[in-house]
């Protein structure tokens, strides 16, 4: 009896753990030096992260971020990151266009912008790469420009188009934060062309890649298109709040 033995295929607990351990280790090791589904990790976690980020920001959307003293300004720490070339802008013909879902579309010259109230702030500029620099920016509050354009009730986002074809988009709450500026001065001097002259975004509440330089057009819109921003469309986070 029983000349033929069929080996049991049942896994013991230890065998199961062994196999899980080995396959888990191989999964982890194969990830070394590779993307390993970073797009999936982003697709799964980013919606949650974005909700948490905008929730934290929304608790006190007008709260001022503490500023720094003049002696803390670090002039050399601010690295210039430009995605393409530095554009050539004729300041006489320059216009800032504000359009989209607004009752009063604008086309402002630099002279007109400089007549609006000047706000100065010394903030920490934080780059997605990990470095940070304490910079003084001065310019007009973006909320003042938005108010002039009289946005419709439905407006939820702002698109920023730059002279070098760079583009980005913000949630409206961060756009009307009192420290979100369209700056034309840096560290007490006229804004250098490399830093985005004549007009750039500057804010302590967003990462550096959201702070577009050489802004020529602001579109206030009710919905985001499938193009959310130059870096955002490549895979960087859209909200990117600080």
């Amino acid at each position: 009896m029983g000349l033929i033995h069929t080996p049991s295929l049942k896994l013991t607990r230890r065998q199961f753990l062994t196999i899980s351990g080995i396959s888990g280790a191989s999964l982890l090791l194969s990830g070394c030096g590779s993307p390993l589904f970073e797009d999936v990790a982003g697709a799964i976690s980013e919606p949650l992260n974005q909700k948490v980020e905008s929730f934290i920001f929304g608790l006190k959307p007008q709260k001022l971020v503490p500023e720094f003293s003049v002696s803390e300004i670090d002039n050399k720490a601010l690295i210039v990151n430009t995605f393409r070339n530095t554009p050539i802008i004729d300041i006489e013909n320059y216009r800032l266009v504000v359009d989209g879902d607004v009752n009063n579309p604008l086309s402002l010259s630099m002279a007109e912008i400089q007549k609006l109230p000047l706000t100065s702030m010394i903030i920490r500029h934080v780059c997605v790469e990990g470095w940070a620099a304490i910079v003084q920016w001065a310019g007009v509050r973006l909320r003042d420009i938005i108010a002039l354009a009289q946005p419709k009730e439905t407006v939820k986002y702002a698109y920023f188009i730059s002279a070098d074809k760079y583009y980005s988009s913000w949630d409206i709450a961060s756009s009307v934060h009192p420290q979100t500026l369209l700056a034309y001065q840096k560290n007490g001097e006229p804004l250098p062309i490399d830093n985005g002259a004549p007009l750039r975004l500057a804010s302590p509440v967003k990462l550096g890649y959201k702070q577009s330089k050489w802004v020529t057009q602001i579109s206030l819109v009710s919905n985001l298109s499938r193009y959310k921003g130059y870096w955002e469309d490549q895979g960087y986070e859209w909200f990117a709040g600080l």
Partner: protein
Amino acid sequence: MLTSGIQIYNANPVFGGRAGLHIPPIFALGGWLAGGRHWHFAAMWVFSLNLLWYGIFVLVTRRWRHRYVGLLDIKALQKSQNPKRLTFAWHRIAYTSIIPILLFAIFTGIGMYKPAQFPWIVDFFGSWQALRIVHFATVPLVLIFALVHSYLARKVGGTEFTESMFW
């Protein structure tokens, strides 16, 4: 968390900036900066919720009263001749010290993720650079912990002890 953190680190090394000390990309997860950030900010939930769950478990089961290093362990290290008691004391030091290390990793991480919301975290460490260094210090500290832990476990039970985890 470690490997995706190294990916982020390499975008602008904490030590020396762009021209500074890069870590070989074989240790980096994510492929590029955005990918490293995706992994880092996905894994932070698993890591921090896991630590929170452990904290609740330790409190509810009252393990905190006798699982961590105490005065008796320090005394034992000074006086005891019993090798088992000595290893036990070192083990408790290792397991106790890893907890603040992991908590500091979260604390400094929140400070870098949301410096405008929690500016006092950056102030607590004095500067942005100091905050980055403390956050990065998690990498060598966790690696040292892993080595000490495995050395102590082998000292207690040898390879049989390690193998008993698998078969």
